[in-house]
């Protein structure tokens, strides 16, 4: 805080602080309180709101827990988001290492441009691209069949398609934090470990990964949160049997019109995300400030 005042002076620094507080209050705090408030109240027609029946209850949460299907979908969303996180991590770590420590400046620039180009497009369009690729008569099936790996086309839409689409959509959010972290690793550290007789595997496990853990934690938090809250990829690439929890939240709000139950579902998702984030940070022994930095 004092840093802000020192850098920008009291009037301008004060403006920034006030703006941030307004943003926090208007975009995070008030909507959050509103959500929690309505999640705890029953869904009533307008004339009855504020009347005798409008009391605080856990009914909406109980509905989620007791529902034959929704609890399961909730858990599947958590599990699939974790899967997306793991998949992007496994994919990104070697690439990030190569970019940050091995590649020449020229190679790095070309790679970054190639990776960024698809992200100039809208997320929906990118999802649609996967929709086309994974179609029954799409290029993936055609290619695999031409190679003789498949006898008949496979229906990719469903959980597999959703995970693939999301991994693609969020891969850079994993790549950049890890890449940044590894780029700050002194090359001599790797040389010293090798000189002392370390195998490549041990160098990564003992030297590179501990150094990159803040980046890894940040990437995992980003990807997990976005996957759990994603709507486009499941809507496009899912199948009737592979509903995502966000789709159910959407239905409560905009199709069924029960905002209270929708709010309860949303709060449940938010609470889960928050606990996973804190769990991840604890697992990596990273505190929130260093992760944000």
């Amino acid at each position: 805080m004092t840093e802000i005042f020192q850098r920008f002076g009291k009037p301008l620094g004060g403006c920034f602080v006030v703006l941030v507080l307004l943003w926090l209050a208007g975009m995070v705090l008030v909507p959050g309180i509103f959500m929690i408030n309505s999640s705890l109240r029953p869904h009533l027609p307008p004339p009855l709101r504020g009347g005798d029946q409008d009391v605080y209850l856990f009914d909406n949460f109980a509905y989620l827990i007791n529902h034959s299907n929704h609890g399961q979908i909730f858990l599947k969303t958590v599990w699939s988001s974790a899967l997306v996180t793991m998949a992007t991590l496994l994919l990104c770590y070697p690439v990030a290492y190569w970019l940050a420590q091995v590649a020449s400046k020229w190679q790095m620039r070309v790679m970054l441009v190639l990776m960024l180009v698809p992200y100039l497009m809208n997320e929906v369009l990118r999802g649609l691209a996967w929709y086309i690729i994974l179609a029954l008569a799409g290029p993936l099936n055609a290619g695999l069949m031409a190679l003789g790996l498949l006898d008949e086309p496979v229906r990719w839409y469903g959980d597999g398609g959703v995970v693939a689409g999301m991994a693609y959509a969020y891969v850079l959010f994993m790549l950049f934090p890890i890449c940044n972290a590894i780029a700050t690793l002194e090359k001599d550290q790797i040389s010293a470990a090798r000189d002392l007789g370390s195998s490549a595997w041990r160098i990564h496990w003992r030297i590179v990964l501990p150094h990159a853990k803040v980046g890894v934690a940040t990437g995992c938090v980003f990807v997990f949160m976005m996957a759990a809250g994603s709507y486009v990829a499941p809507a496009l690439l899912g199948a009737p049997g592979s509903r995502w929890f966000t789709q159910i939240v959407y239905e409560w709000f905009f199709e069924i019109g029960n905002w209270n139950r929708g709010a309860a579902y949303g709060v449940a998702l938010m609470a889960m995300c928050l606990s996973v984030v804190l769990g991840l940070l604890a697992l990596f022994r990273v505190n929130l400030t260093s992760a944000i930095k």
Partner: protein
Amino acid sequence: MNCAENIRTSFSVLDTLLSEKAGNAAGDMLVASGCPPSAVRLSDVEMDFGGTQAIKRLSLDVKKGEFFSILGPSGCGKTTLLRLISGFLQPTAGQVFINGRNMLSVPSNKRATAMIFQSLALFPFMTVWENVAFGLEARGVGKSERRREAERLLELVALPGYGARMPSELSGGQRQRVAIARALAIKPEVLLLDEPLSALDLKLRQHMRTELRDLQKRTGVTFFYITHDQSEALAMSDRVAVMNAGALQQVGTPQQLYSQPATQFVASFVGETNAIAGVVVSSASGTAVLDGPDGRFTGRCLAGLQPGMRACLYVRPEALNLEANGYENSLPLTMERFDFEGAFAIAKAVVSGGTEPRQISLTISQRNLSEAPAVGAAFRAGFSSQDAIILPDD
């Protein structure tokens, strides 16, 4: 106890450990008949980095148990040379031998060398003892034994009980000692040192010179030392190789490099010197005559110097006398100023009558200072032909 004392203690204890190893090495050499193989041998090594030649065809022999230094300005390729020996780089051409074994396609983690980095490169996320024992961990030594060995080494470098600390909690000198303990843990045949003293302050650096030298002498481990500091190289080494622009200029004892430089680069890079340019008039049996704008001078020369060649005569400041009588050579000078250094003074004088003003340095001992010409006075400085050397232009 101040830092320097600390380090002195650490090294004296360290010797105990290393002398065991040296004893074993001596025993091995007795068993093997004939000449022991060189600790490090480079044969016609070349190194290219995308078109630029960092190392030009170079051969070098470092004897077992020698304190060998590579001295050169920054960017001369000396660190590249070190990396070729440690295995971080593979030469474009030529071969590297360590203890007589060809190191072609032997990776750095399989070589009998240990490197001390300029940055020390301690692992910041590991405790001190884990740092020291890292080489043993990579060799599959069990945890309890690793811990014991690390504690033993830490005791030897006078850091007992520091095992549980993190490197960031140590001072610069302590970190240096951890780096040495870490390198010694893997019992290397050759210790490669990449300007390890450059980060220390002057006083500690001068102290460490003596200590490193003593340590090396008493233990017999081969030290391969890289530096751009000529006084460091001259003070510590058995032999020094002077390097410039990717090529070796001269290999010899510090004394040889100082009194018999083979090239103009060595003459001017090693120690202080005065250069007088001119053209060779005659040369015969190790003596040559040089004629230039400042006069005609006689000096020693090496074979191959022909009359008509452009050359320079080099004479050290301490070889110049305030008296010209009785010397073959004399130089007309005007005194400019004195830099008092304590036991002696450096006098700066300009050549009189030259086309452009050039400064000449003379060392004047404390005793002769009262008889020295006053500032502004003209005088003739004499020097013997034995104290001057004439080297051809490159």
